[in-house]
């Protein structure tokens, strides 16, 4: 299939339109349409991943490294002295996003199944959910910054309504907080996007514009550096792959690699990197920009929590890799200690907070903050192991956190109460549920055999080896693992073991064990978590070449 990625991105959108056009009389069809649409998407994603060739080798900043590429001009116009303003519809996969794509497909489908019980305003709910799905998938495959930004921003609005209409008691507050925090982040990203656009040119289009062959890219780059090709003929570019190549920066522009340009007395590239870092760190979220997350999670309905923790956080991590690290490797190296420190801090701070929570969902939300710290630390290490670990952690945490939020949803569905202290000895009442809770908790705390263990192990190996961050950072971060075991085991003990007790006697009858729909969601997740815990090479083989060239790309600045 030629337009495989486009089908993947736009099938949910088509399903959303179908939902909107279906009359209200057939409202039971909405959820069926949603599950079918996302099921088809997942099938196509699996097909795409199976077609993805992990052995393709190429530099992270060359289009040779990409697969399943689709590139057509979206619009191009000349805007005064800015020159040609050209935006492409440019999607493709490489090792950095192929795993994310697969994860998104899985979690979105599970979220759709989890939405089965939504009763209020079904049309709006499923329409927005599909819209959100489409923009998430688009965000992972877009390789044109403009397109990426469009999808990135477009996630906010559906999410705002999904939390704000179908959420818990403080939903309005949580929704607007989520929107404002993320918007601050996207504004910072927008600033850098404008800056990059003003600094980067498209060597191929410039070659054609200046009357050269499209194949004479290197020659054209040389001529632009010399100043032989004048600014009128330079075609600027939003292409994220071009932005990663130092040779594609217009001489004298602000973000030029050797540039001495300063903003507020600091090198412009450092400022730009920091802006991107904060922008995506809000989404990730990293301490101290994480405070929207517990609120959003607590108020959001279960399926939205699943999507939020399972995929939306990963958009932050992926964006950080794709833009900040790949485009500004020098600045990334300069700030690696800072990123490593915040990673370490998040691991411990998130775990300590989780330890103190009384609400099960809030506990899981803080454990997410803690686990996302590993992503930051792995990236800061700048070694192959560290980066692989970071990507693996995103993938693994996507599955595990989806499962954790489903589990919290199971109990909330039955009693509308998530306070840990209100339950005791649930194991005797709901034995099968307890088994799944135990699996999820152990997977999340990093027990060998589950995918989380592989990810965290690689992050630690990578950061101990790293010359970019000092060794005490991973050492301190290991306490996070101990704390993680602490809060999970303690919760397990308080809620599930001992004599059966619940606060409200009326709950006893409603506390039934898992139903078939819940099995349908939980069992595949358990299998996936185990499979990726035992055969990490399933994913690592796909991403390895890209990660290695990414590490090489960073390595130039690590001497």
């Amino acid at each position, binding site marked *: 299939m030629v337009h495989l990625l486009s089908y993947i991105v736009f099938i949910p959108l088509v399903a959303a339109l179908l939902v909107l056009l279906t009359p209200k009389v057939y409202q039971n069809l909405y959820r069926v349409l949603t599950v079918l649409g996302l099921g088809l998407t997942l099938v196509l994603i699996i097909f795409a991943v199976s077609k993805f060739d992990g052995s393709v080798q190429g530099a992270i900043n060359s289009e040779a490294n990409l697969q399943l590429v689709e590139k057509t001009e979206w619009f191009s116009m000349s*805007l*005064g002295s800015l020159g040609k303003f050209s935006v492409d519809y440019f999607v493709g996969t490489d090792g950095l996003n192929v795993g994310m794509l697969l994860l998104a497909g899985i979690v979105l489908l599970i979220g759709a199944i989890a939405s089965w019980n939504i009763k209020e305003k079904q049309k709006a709910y499923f329409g927005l959910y599909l819209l959100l799905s489409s923009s998430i998938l688009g965000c992972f495959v877009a390789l044109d910054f403009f397109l990426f930004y469009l999808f990135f921003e477009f996630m906010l*609005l559906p999410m705002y309504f999904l939390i704000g209409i179908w959420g818990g008691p403080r939903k309005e507050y949580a929704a607007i907080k989520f929107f404002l925090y993320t918007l601050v982040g996207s504004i910072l990203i*927008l600033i850098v996007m404008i800056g990059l656009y003003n600094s980067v040119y498209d060597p191929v289009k410039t070659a054609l514009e200046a009357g050269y062959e499209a194949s004479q890219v290197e020659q054209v780059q040389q001529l632009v550096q010399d100043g032989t090709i004048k600014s009128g003929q330079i075609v600027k570019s939003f292409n994220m792959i071009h932005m990663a190549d130092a040779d594609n920066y217009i001489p004298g522009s602000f973000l030029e690699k050797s540039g001495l340009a300063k903003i507020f007395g600091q090198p412009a590239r450092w400022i730009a990197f920091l802006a991107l870092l904060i922008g995506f760190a809000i989404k990730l979220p990293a301490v101290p920009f994480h405070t929207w997350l517990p609120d959003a999670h607590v108020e959001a309905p279960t399926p939205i929590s699943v999507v939020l923790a399972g995929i939306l956080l990963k958009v932050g991590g992926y964006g950080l890799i794709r833009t900040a690290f790949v485009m500004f490797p020098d600045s990334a190296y300069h700030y690696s200690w800072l990123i490593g420190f915040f990673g370490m801090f998040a691991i411990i701070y998130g775990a300590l907070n989780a330890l103190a929570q009384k609400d099960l969902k809030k506990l899981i939300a803080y454990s997410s903050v803690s686990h996302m710290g590993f992503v930051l630390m792995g990236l800061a290490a700048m070694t192959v192991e560290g980066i692989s670990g970071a990507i693996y952690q995103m993938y693994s945490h996507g599955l595990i956190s989806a499962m954790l939020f489903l589990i919290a949803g199971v109990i909330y569905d039955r009693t509308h109460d998530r306070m840990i202290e209100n339950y005791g000895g649930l194991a005797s009442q709901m034995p099968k549920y307890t088994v799944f809770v135990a699996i999820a908790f152990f997977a999340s705390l990093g027990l060998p055999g589950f995918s989380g263990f592989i990810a965290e192990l690689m992050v630690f190996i990578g950061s101990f080896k790293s010359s970019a961050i000092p060794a005490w950072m991973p050492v301190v971060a290991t306490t996070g693992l101990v704390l993680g075991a602490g809060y999970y085991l303690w919760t397990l003990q308080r809620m599930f073991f001992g004599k059966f007790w619940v606060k409200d006697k009326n709950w006893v009858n409603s506390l039934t064990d898992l139903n078939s729909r819940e099995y349908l969601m939980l069992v595949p997740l358990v299998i996936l978590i185990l499979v990726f815990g035992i055969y990490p090479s399933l994913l690592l083989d796909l991403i390895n070449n890209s990660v290695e060239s990414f590490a090489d790309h960073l390595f130039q600045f690590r001497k």
Partner: protein
Amino acid sequence: MLISQLQHSGLKEKLASTSQDLWALLPEIVIVSTIILLVVFDLIFKKNKSIGLAAIAFAGLAYCFVLTIQQWHSVESSKALMSGLLNLNRLSIFLKGGFIIGLTMALITAIRSGDLQKDFFKSSEILVMLFGLLLGASFMTLSSNLLMIYISIEVVSICSYILTGLTKGRKKAEAAMKYLIYGAVASAIMLYGMSWLYGFTGTLNLTDQSFAIAITQIPQLPLSIACVMVMGGFLFKLGAFPLHIWSPDVYEATPTPIVAVFSVLPKLAALVIIFKFVNLINTPLIDWELWIGILAIASMTVGNFSALWQKDIKRMLAYSSIAHAGFLLVGILAFSSSGNQAMLFYGSVYLMMNFGAFYLVQILERQTGDTSFQSMKGLGIKLPLIASLVLVVMIALTGLPPTAGFNGKLYIFSALWESYQADGHDILIWVFVFGLLNTVVALFYYLKLPYLLFFKTPQSEISLDNKEISDALVGTLFVLPLLLLFFRSDWFVGLMNSINFELWIP
């Protein structure tokens, strides 16, 4: 001065060229004829005049629009008219076309407004004043002579004062009085400043060679004082900080379709005048980047933060238009061809956004009877189509994708970055940072209306008339360009590429 010129160059030739130039003013002549027709029609017929008046108004607008398109094709570069009093170029033709579309949208809003329809079309008064405002705004875009600028601004102002006070009510009288007093003082100060400039240079014509030469020989202080005074009048019309205080009261008291006209036509016309003025007083003695930069930052910030606390939608939109005036100034600030195009793009998108927003507010007002935020609670469930359109417009006003509001901001700030890269003036980076962070503040109040519409449950039962489908169809016509221009903004920019922003006449 005119008379002396006439004596020099021979009355006959002058008259000949003037009558020649009249052809170039055909769109304006059509506007005047429409006004006369409206008045005459109103006098002749006694009853059931509304259909006739509406027909005349729309026919006049349509004919005027056709003429404007013809003019667009026949005029390539700047052309001096009426002995240099006017300066016809594609920039002004483009804006005139926009104004005509805007006024048409306002009249459609009035037709769909229920009660107001009677006020608008019962007699010719409001229509005549609106056309007068259009005439003034058209001449503002054409003027390149200080006297002509003053007269056209006054035409717009006087029409505005009357429009504010025309419908009955104590609040309206207060607003009209406030408007009149502020406006009169601003005009007087502007006129005084113009007299200084005339005294310095000996000419009123901004595009005159002698003006350009003389302006460089004036000491800094008196030139600055003169410019501050003149800019005062312009900023009043633009509704930018610090001369914005009148606008919330006026907006709140005036009927919504008229407010829509107030919020766009005079603003964009004033923007063009500021653009000309700032570019033609081209001397290193005045740091225009600093001046405009500070004004832009202040307008954006003051407008946005004041809008946060509003309880009435129209007041909120008034403050939002103050903030947008700041964004429009950023386009001038870039002082580059990309900045000019970005400014014009933003201005056009602003026109569409505002007429769309006021149309939807008018529809909601028809249902609830007032424009306070509280009365909008829960209407989204009953009017899902209208509420969705409101959401799109508010997203566009905030400047988020996928609406043209995002492109407008993107182009403006790209141009700004480019000029910062070129000259490194510190104020530019501050404008950049403040401008984009203001977007976050803006989100907070723009989302308030969709928030109330969708998230809240209605306080009491409101009886709705069943016109949602037709309302939404018209609304879609207003709102659709905002989405289309996001996906294909090259169509529109292509049109702007043929505009020559050169102000000098060769």
